[in-house]
């Protein structure tokens, strides 16, 4: 979709949302007004998270620096990036690190403000500047035009480096990505390991673009590009590869040279990020706002419809009053803790907690059993270095699988609760007083829209809610939190059996089994730590989802109560009016209804629905 069309649609949406907000104020419905404000905010501040991944030393940090034309991510020949760094828009430069104090049983993350000079100390490998904490991530805000549209770039530690925990941090970052930029350099064709990582990444976020870096340095980059394309094709991975050169980009920026900038390949990458990624995210936000708008304007519309009916048809008023009383009762019941949706929500959450916990325990039991067997087969003195990354990777895969299970269950529950809520609100007599579930309309919109709203297999609604809880500093919940955990290598005693091994065969055997049990202990300790952390995190996540759902549905129930009680008051008042007054009021109400109807029509148009 072109930028111009986008902008026009955006302007229209914002104008309509503002108008609806004013209407809410005029009709004394600040609760509905607040919803319009929030919708307006979500349209103006789109959040598109682009996570840059790849093997280490491929030029990820350089790529981000070149995209922004600023040195924000530290680049070094040797030392690699060790923690994820998120860069987003801010009016002024601001950086902070999320750190976990070491040595605490269940440490709570703390934010530290950073100066620009402190960033490298926080994000690069092997830095002991702050030994008392574990750095989990860094977030930088800066006034860059590219970021203003809501783009957030996340630099990640390369996979495959010797620090085995990095892969986990990267997977953690991927779990929140709207798009993934996979970086590989032109020094050689894609390796098996890279292709495998790419496949894994695609499972977490299918929106992937590949970037071939350092094309200025490798004369044969076109050959490499061809080879890479054929490797991707063979694996059935459908992603574009954009060749880029940071050197040319830097030169172009310095000399303000358009031709060289084109040559650098960056404009293509930028337009991908801007149009495809941010554009899509903006489109999604717009559709959400449209559904909110439709919901609010429908509520207002039905209010005036009732009012007008009461004014124009006094005979029917008596029956209507009864309906309205029923509706009010239903709305009140909806708010109470006894309503079906609340019970379902509470029970459902308890069930999910149990199921997710059970699922994770089963997964970990299998990992431990497999790890146990592996350690029993060899001598940890030889196998530990290989074993450790295997364990960390295996565990993180299980955590991700468990996380996806959790999201699936949570979205199912969200939709169940939504249905119950809607059912309870729907009265047979006055359909116009329907209370809509907060996500119901969005569903309709999503179903018939061809934009890939369901691009996450994670069930977007539940996921949206969970993501909604993360604001400010990025918290790579779940997967991210285990990035802080490391396997504490066992002190492998007595490998020093070097003088005359065979003569001391029994001793060798004994020491070997001691090493095995040490290694097993270290492995179990790690798995226990991860289980503890994941358990806590999934509970927190579910509680957050529960709270979000309760609040949102509760708000909606309150709105319904207000709407029905306001309509009831109007209807009662109308019944007492004289014929002349009634006529005058009816005229007014008709005019208001026309206005609200126009608003609703506009909302339908913006939501892409056929007007009723």
């Amino acid at each position, binding site marked *: 979709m072109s930028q111009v069309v986008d902008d026009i649609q955006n302007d229209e949406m914002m104008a309509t949302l503002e108008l609806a907000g004013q209407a809410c104020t005029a009709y004394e419905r600040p609760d509905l007004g607040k919803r319009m404000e929030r919708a307006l905010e979500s349209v103006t501040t789109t959040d598109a998270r682009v996570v840059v991944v790849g093997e280490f030393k491929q030029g990820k940090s350089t790529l981000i620096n070149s995209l922004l034309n600023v040195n924000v991510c530290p680049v070094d020949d040797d030392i690699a990036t060790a923690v994820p760094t998120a860069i987003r828009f801010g009016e002024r430069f601001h950086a902070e690190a999320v750190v976990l104090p070491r040595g605490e049983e269940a440490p709570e993350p703390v934010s530290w403000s950073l100066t620009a000079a402190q960033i490298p100390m926080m994000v690069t490998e092997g830095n002991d500047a702050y030994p008392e904490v574990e750095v989990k991530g860094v977030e930088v805000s800066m006034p860059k035009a590219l970021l203003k549209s809501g783009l957030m770039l996340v630099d990640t530690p390369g996979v495959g480096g010797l620090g085995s925990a990095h892969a986990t941090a990267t997977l953690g970052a991927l779990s929140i990505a709207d798009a993934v930029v996979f970086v590989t350099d032109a020094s050689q064709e894609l390796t098996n390991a890279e292709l495998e990582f790419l496949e894994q990444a695609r499972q977490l976020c299918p929106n992937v673009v590949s970037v071939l870096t350092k094309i200025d340095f490798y*004369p044969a980059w076109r050959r490499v590009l061809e080879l890479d394309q054929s490797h991707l094709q063979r694996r059935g991975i459908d992603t574009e590869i954009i060749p880029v050169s940071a050197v040319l980009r830097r030169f172009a920026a310095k000399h303000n040279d358009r031709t060289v900038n084109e040559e650098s390949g960056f404009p293509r990458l930028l337009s991908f990020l801007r149009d495809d990624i941010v554009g899509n995210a903006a489109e999604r936000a717009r559709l959400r706002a449209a559904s909110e708008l439709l919901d609010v304007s429908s509520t207002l519309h039905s209010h005036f419809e009732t009012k007008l009916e009461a004014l124009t048809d006094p005979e029917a008023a008596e029956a209507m009053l009864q309906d309205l009383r029923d509706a009010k009762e239903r709305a009140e019941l909806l708010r109470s803790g006894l309503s079906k949706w609340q019970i379902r929500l509470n029970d459902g959450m308890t069930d999910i907690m149990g199921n997710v916990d059970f699922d994770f325990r089963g997964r970990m039991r299998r990992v431990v059993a497999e790890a146990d067997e592996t350690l029993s087969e060899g001598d940890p003195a030889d196998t530990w270095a290989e074993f450790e990354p295997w364990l960390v990777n295996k565990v993180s895969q299980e955590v991700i699988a468990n996380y996806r299970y959790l999201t699936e269950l949570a979205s199912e529950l969200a939709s169940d609760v939504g249905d119950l809520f809607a059912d309870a609100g729907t009265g047979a007599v006055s359909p116009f007083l329907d209370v809509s579930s907060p996500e119901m309309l969005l569903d309709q919109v999503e179903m018939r829209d061809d934009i890939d709203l369901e691009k996450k297999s994670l069930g977007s609604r539940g996921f949206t809610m969970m993501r909604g809880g993360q604001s400010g500093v990025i918290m790579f919940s779940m997967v991210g939190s285990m990035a802080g955990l490391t396997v504490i290598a066992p002190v492998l005693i007595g490998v020093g059996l070097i003088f005359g091994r065979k*003569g001391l065969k029994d001793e060798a055997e004994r020491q070997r089994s001691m090493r095995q049990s040490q290694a097993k202990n270290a492995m179990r300790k790690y798995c226990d730590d991860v289980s503890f952390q994941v358990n806590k995190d999934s509970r927190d996540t579910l509680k957050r989802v529960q709270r979000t759902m309760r609040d949102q549905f509760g708000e909606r129930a309150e709105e319904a109560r207000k709407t029905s009680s306001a309509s009831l008051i109007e209807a009662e008042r109308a019944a007492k009016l004289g014929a002349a007054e009634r006529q005058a009021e009816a005229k007014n109400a008709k005019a208001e209804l026309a206005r609200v109807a126009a608003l609703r029509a506009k909302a339908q148009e913006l939501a892409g629905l056929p007007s009723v």
Partner: protein
Amino acid sequence: MSEESAFEGQLGASETPLSEIGDTKDDHALLVDRTRRLVEETRRRFPAYDEELQAVLARFDEPLRVAIAGKVKAGKSTLLNALVGERIAPTDTGECTKIVTWYQDSHTYGVRAHMREGGDVPTLPFRREERSVTIDLGGRSPDDISRLEVDWPSSSLRELTLIDTPGIDSVNAEVGARSIEFLDATERSTPADAVLYLMKHMHASDFHLLEAFHDDEVSQPNPINALAVLSRADEIGVGRLDSMASARRIAQRYETDPRLRRLVTAVVPVAGLLGETARTLTQNEYTLLSELATVPHKDLEPHLLSADRFLEASPETPGTSLDREQLLGRFGVFGIRIALVLIRRGVVNSSRELADELLKRSGVIELRETLSKLFVERSGVLKARSALLAIEKICTTEGESADDLMVQVEQITAGAHPFRELATLAALRSGTISGRPADLQLLERTVGAKGTGPAQRLGLDDDADVSAQRTAVFTQIEGARRLAESPFTEHDLAKACTVATRSLEGVLNSTPDDPS
């Protein structure tokens, strides 16, 4: 406990009269001799293995076999060419080497193929082209060939037979498997005596592969026969002029990484492409570079910005596009930059001088020296190790009837001083011996971590005079003894000191008497 003390007694080397201790060369000769005799005995006892054991014996008279291993595109063939000084191994942008290929010195040129199913092909037609030697497999599938042997008269191959291996982690799993099969130490005969492991950066998978090579019985994970090469070092700084210095720093850091230390003796940075080109530089290439060097820096710089730009036709750049394309392929962006600086500043004035300077900067000379100090000078020990490994495997297959031979293998492995040095070195590098870092470093050097010559063991310059050597030996023997006897010294460290003392006594014996 009694077993332990008997074991101590057996090894009480430092109590041997000094007059009976040989120097390093004697030790090595003695070891080779003992091993040869054991191979002969095994041959007599188990005629079934005659052919295999004959090959083992023949290996003692052949050059040391060094395998060049690493992941795909680590620059193995390029480095091989740089070491030989000729472009024999084919190199390409895509994955290239698909068959394990031996390059060995000979009187005549020739190529043989060993087939997987037996039945060797004694001569394969080949063509020598500008870029490499092209071998015609005659329609045979690479899958069916277990290895190619290329006979190539070359002084560079006189001391070392080089073995090029397909890249591991190849997208084509079959190809990678061939290398693993070749290098896997669990195979009966270890075809290579030593391994040069090439890597671009220290990737976790490099680390795993290195570990896999070391999983053998005679000497446990042993860093002594492996050397890591930070190949493609010129690419580390993406062509910046200080790339090699940067690579050297990285190599030093890797060398101190405890995980890597137990796997390799040293980490050497090499710009393989630069080395290959330096050793095969042509006059035409030099001429074109000289012409380029006459173009003012500021006019040339925009063309050196990227490879594509360098190839574009322009009035500033001499030569045809094709010339420049070839030049770029041979030198790389880094090579061209550095060559231009050298010519412009008048550091070099001829193709000969340029070749020498580039070779020096490529790190290939340093690598050769390291190879020579660590492998060639110790070749007897490494070959003996390979031979013992072969016998041990036979013993394992034969079971009880070979138990006495196994005991002999054991005696040599545990008793021969060069092996005790290797074992001590392995233990020191794997971090299982604890002590003050300075002491450990000294011990490591003494038992031959930097080479087996007196100067390397003592930590002196190669040209240190006799009296300096004698002084150093006495001080160090004294130091090692004191450390060994200290009540605070742990058992393992004390044992390492004993071995080091014995090594120093060997050095002393090889040192001429002080003239003063």
